[in-house]
């Protein structure tokens, strides 16, 4: 019976390994992984309300509802667009390395049993939907107080279709960028640079606000609430992007948190030195800047890399928001370009500097500052190709989208509406009625 027990033992080992890793049986759903990504999807979905409060708190009190509503509108529109054609354009069978085919229109052919790796394919659909939603939401920080609401309703699905879906396909859906080996763990390029390029185009097309309509933030604690929810949700964003509940997901969790914290601290210190006072808005902005910058790198760089990325983004985004905007002269109201554009670009670039086989495994790449090798330099080049292509493509296409919107619904509100505030003029709804006596009559 020697042989028999020998085989038995081998089998036992195999079984246990197989059942734990799913290696022998790739096509099975892992409830642990699926559980984590379902959770992550909910976390990322919550980032959109978080963003609405982050932006809403920074708005003037007379535009606060409008700002929150525009961001919430992305949830309402993109959730449906994604199901109908967004998912298939992003993740459908590849067409020329540029966009997905239409094979999964309306989620056609995906059953509750369909798998995507160890996940249900519907989990993947859900998780990716939340990324599409927030990317569009991010753009709208640039337009505070002057964009028509019907323009917004047209812009959102149009832009998602011609910018988000293709760029997502390039990087994650089987398109050229992913195939070339450009690294973007959780969306530095797809989400942040993409939205910032659009924000730049959109705010140039909209023009500047009147100085009198530029106001201090209505509600700083609300900004903190937004930042808190964003930080919380970002664990789904970054650690969820591993698409499994494994060690690398946990690694990405820690890396994300470290970079956010470092950048928050850095922003506070830089602001203190530059303006003499540290502010809560600064702390919150720094945290978001750090989260943005670590997004493309979260599953590729080590703890020390993440601290350095945190510092770079804290300093870089501070000066981009405070100095660059003024110097160049566009009116990006809530600094989408400064925080998401610059932060995303720093992150995409720094991924090429700090990515490491320690995290990526033997098939990975050691970045320039890790390996000081040609491989690293090459990766850095790839990273630049990735973000330059996205900046250029999205900027140009967004200009076209804006022109279409302009000649359909019109882009900008009237001056009277802007002076009165968009809450009352567009929505007939004031943000607050905190006075105890009624000043009007309800009918």
């Amino acid at each position, binding site marked *: 019976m020697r042989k028999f027990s020998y085989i038995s033992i081998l089998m036992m080992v195999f079984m246990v390994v197989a059942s734990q890793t799913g290696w022998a049986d790739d096509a099975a759903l892992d409830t642990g992984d699926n559980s984590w990504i379902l959770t992550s999807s909910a976390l990322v979905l919550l980032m959109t309300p978080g963003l609405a409060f982050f932006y809403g708190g920074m708005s003037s009190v007379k535009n606060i509802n409008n700002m929150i509503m525009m961001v919430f509108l992305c949830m309402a529109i993109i959730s449906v667009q994604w199901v109908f054609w967004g998912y298939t354009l992003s993740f459908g069978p590849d067409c020329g390395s540029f966009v997905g085919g239409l094979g999964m229109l309306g989620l056609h052919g995906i059953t509750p049993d369909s798998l995507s790796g160890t996940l249900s394919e519907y989990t993947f659909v859900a998780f990716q939907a939340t990324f599409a939603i927030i990317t569009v939401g991010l753009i709208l920080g640039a337009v505070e107080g002057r964009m028509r609401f019907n323009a917004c309703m047209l812009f959102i699905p149009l832009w998602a279709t011609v910018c988000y879906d293709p760029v997502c396909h390039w990087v994650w859906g089987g398109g050229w960028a992913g195939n070339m080996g450009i690294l973007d763990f959780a969306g530095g390029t797809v989400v942040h640079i993409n939205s910032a390029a659009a924000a730049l185009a959109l705010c140039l097309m909209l023009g500047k606000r009147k100085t009198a309509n530029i106001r201090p933030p209505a509600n700083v604690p609300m900004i903190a609430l937004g930042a808190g929810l964003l930080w919380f949700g970002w664990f789904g964003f970054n650690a969820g992007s591993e698409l499994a509940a494994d060690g690398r997901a946990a690694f990405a969790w820690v890396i994300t948190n470290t970079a956010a914290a470092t950048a928050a601290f850095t922003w506070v210190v830089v602001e203190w030195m530059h303006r003499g006072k540290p502010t809560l808005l600064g702390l919150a902005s720094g945290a978001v800047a750090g989260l943005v910058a670590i997004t493309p790198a979260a599953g590729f760089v080590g703890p020390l890399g993440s601290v350095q990325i945190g510092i770079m983004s804290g300093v870089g985004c501070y000066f981009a928001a405070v100095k660059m905007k003024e110097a160049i002269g566009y009116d990006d109201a809530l600094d989408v370009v400064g925080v998401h554009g610059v932060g995303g670009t720093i992150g995409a670039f720094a991924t090429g500097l700090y990515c490491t086989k320690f995290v990526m495994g033997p098939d990975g790449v050691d970045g320039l500052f890790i390996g000081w090798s040609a491989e690293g330099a090459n990766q850095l080049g790839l990273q630049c190709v990735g973000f330059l292509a996205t900046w250029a493509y999205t900027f140009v296409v967004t200009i076209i989208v804006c022109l279409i919107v302009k000649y359909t619904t019109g882009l900008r509100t009237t001056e009277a509406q802007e002076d009165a505030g968009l809450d*009352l003029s567009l929505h007939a709804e004031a943000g607050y009625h905190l006075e105890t006596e009624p000043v*009007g009559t*309800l*009918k």
Partner: protein
Amino acid sequence: MKRVEAIIRDEKLCGAKEALKALGVAGMTVTEVKGHGAQKGITEVYRGRQYSVDLLPKIKIEAIVDDNDVKKVTDAICEVSRTGSIGDGKIFISGVEDCIRIRTGEAGAKAI
């Protein structure tokens, strides 16, 4: 000594403030008020119910000035606050008998 009390549109505050400063009238007191006049109110909508606000937010600027400054102050305010449409507001002038600067205890014209 006169009290010049101007009720103007919200968005004209900055202009009026600058105009007064330019005239050398540094002291002023500003209050958020709600006003009702010839101007029609606005309607808000909440779950299909209409909420007619007929008291609109206005700004009241009070400045206590020397008798012979009244004219130039009211002129300046009128100029910067006029839009020509209903709701521009009003200026009321009334007498003030005395003024005391708390810091120093000075009274009368030099305390203004």
